[in-house]
């Protein structure tokens, strides 16, 4: 906002921003506040009462949760990596080349994205069981990859299209092979796009509940969202609200960290100055 704004405008802006922030952050803040309460304080309807790490102790001493955390990190990372590599190549091809079947590929990708996961999860369950990949990492990586590819392809091809083709031709004339041009010119320039797509894919895989709940049965591959549903807390006789809150905070933190790290790269706008500005 520039200084041209009047006091009234500034006031309205401030109120607007506050409303949005409150709307977005109150549930998160409430979960965080619950996670620091002892079981006795859980029902006291106050934002700030006690402050204890008891719930975090419970969560981190729970083998199921630790296993789920490792599964989540592993599965989401691998799915993201594969998805981005495949999507980068597909997006590069669709944004640069004119080949028969290009529209088919793009509309196919869109069609995949339109399928509600719930509609195929039943048949996947049967298929995975007969294939022997039920309750394994790969059993989750495949659907995550499949469902995130369209999104990644569309995001990345938008970024690739932004990169002037001349840059690549200049590299070719400079003596680069097509692969060198891709690796040394296009990929560094598309980095913001790659990070954006990575975050979106990672968040999808990290947050998924349907596949994780249906296609896993043990700690071998169960991810955090699914594990939380089975969470019992310290004993079976009390509501594990505090522990679940603590676990929720724990699974949210990696996402926040990741976004904060990559945010800079995303905003950096590396292509500035490529051509006449």
């Amino acid at each position: 906002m520039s200084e041209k704004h009047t006091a009234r405008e500034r006031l309205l802006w401030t109120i607007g921003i506050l409303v949005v922030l409150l709307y977005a952050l109150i549930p998160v803040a409430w979960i965080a506040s619950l996670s620091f309460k002892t079981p006795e304080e859980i029902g006291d309807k106050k934002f700030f009462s006690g402050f204890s790490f008891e719930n975090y102790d419970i969560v981190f001493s729970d083998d199921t949760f630790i296993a789920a955390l490792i599964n989540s990190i592993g599965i989401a990372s691998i799915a993201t990596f594969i998805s981005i590599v495949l999507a980068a190549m597909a997006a590069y091809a669709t944004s640069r080349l004119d080949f028969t079947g290009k529209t088919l590929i793009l509309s196919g990708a869109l069609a995949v994205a339109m399928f509600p996961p719930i509609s195929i999860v039943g048949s996947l369950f049967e298929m995975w069981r007969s294939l022997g990949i039920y309750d394994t990492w790969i059993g989750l990586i495949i659907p995550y990859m499949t469902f995130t590819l369209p999104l990644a392809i569309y995001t990345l091809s938008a970024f690739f299209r932004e990169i002037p083709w001349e840059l690549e031709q200049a590299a070719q004339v400079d003596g680069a092979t097509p692969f060198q041009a891709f690796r040394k010119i296009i990929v560094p320039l598309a980095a913001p796009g790659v990070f954006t797509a990575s975050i979106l894919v990672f968040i999808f895989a990290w947050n998924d509940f349907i596949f994780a709940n249906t296609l896993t049965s043990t700690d071998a591959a169960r991810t955090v969202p699914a594990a939380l549903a089975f969470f019992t807390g310290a004993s079976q006789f009390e509501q594990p609200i505090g522990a679940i809150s603590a676990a929720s905070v724990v699974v949210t933190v990696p996402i926040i960290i990741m976004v904060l790290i990559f945010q800079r790269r995303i905003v950096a706008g590396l292509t500035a100055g490529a051509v006449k500005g």
Partner: protein
Amino acid sequence: MAQITLDNITKRYPDGYEAVRHMNLEVKDGEFVILVGPSGCGKSTALRMIAGLEDITEGELRIGDQVVNDRAPKDRDIAMVFQNYALYPHMSVRDNMGFALKLRGMDKNEINEKVTEAARILDLEQHLDRKPSQLSGGQRQRVAMGRAIVRDPAAFLMDEPLSNLDAKLRVQMRTEVSRIQQQLGTTTVYVTHDQTEAMTLGDRVAVMRAGLIQQVGSPMELYNEPVNLFVAGFVGSPAMNFMPATVEGDTVKLPFGDVKLPSELHDAVRDHHGKQLIAGIRPEHFEDASLVGDARDHGTTFTANIEVLESMGAELYAHFTVASDATIESQELRELAEDAGGGEVPMAGEEGRIVARLEPASQVKVGQEAELWVDATRLHLFDPENGVNLTVEQGAPPATTGDGAAAGEGAPATDTEETAVRPPEGESST
């Protein structure tokens, strides 16, 4: 250093559109050749075929003595300067210029040396560690040049390298480009749509239209002896004046009066008596009649009502209109008019505007009748059917200009033949 030969090169797109047709051009070692023409004439396509960025449908392209049709751009040893510079935005100026050398696996110190040397030539030394986004337009342009220079390639290819600069900088960089090319003596093919750039920069200029080379020659050849209407209208600023003309006996009837033809011209149009022709007169071949001395009997005087006077200090442009009772129709002139507002052609019943370049000493006044003189020996007469300049010997060996170095053997002759036999209705250029 190498010579580039385009031997009957054709570019045909899958939809059948021919961007470049049977192009013959020989660029000698160290020569600076310009491809010029309106947008869509195929000049950039031709350049990109030389670079290897565009496939060649037919014909043979040789760099040095090797056929390079099927070689990747990286194996052709050429450097290209792109219209929008195509600098790598994530690399510093130094890395941009050194990129090609690094790819070649050259030693780091050697790269540094070459980059520094190129930066010195281009006056970029203090900017070596900056990113392209921190540079001004002119500096970016010089980095793009630098990227080409460091490689010491067989040839430079430049695709409208100055068109993104503002007018003043463009003139400055034009001199710069010329200086660098002369200093390095590297074979250069330069594409532009700006005829002024073409005329000032090139050793030789190839004028293209609708995928065909119209004429290849030194700037003065193109200016003084354009082979057809298109070249005549395209080259020169202000453009040549065109008007309807009919030859009767030894005089030619022009809208402003009858002009007696000198015998050479008369002979040239012998077969066109009584037919409708198009006359072309350059602005500088008019003069204030009172300032013409002994030359007076080379031409004819007439009176015109001066409508606008533009005084440029060293020269004076007088605009006047002439009434014509005839129509002239020419696809080439229409294209020119569309492209750059080039030739002004009076249509039926309309009045044609004429620009005359007069001596600044002239006393003509706006709104008054003035007595003007036209040099009949410099008159061009064109056949409206196919645009051919009847007053220039068609397909004549370029040696007639006395400038042997300016022409490739045989190639220009083939080009003009191409022009001469071209059916007028076949041109649906965009």
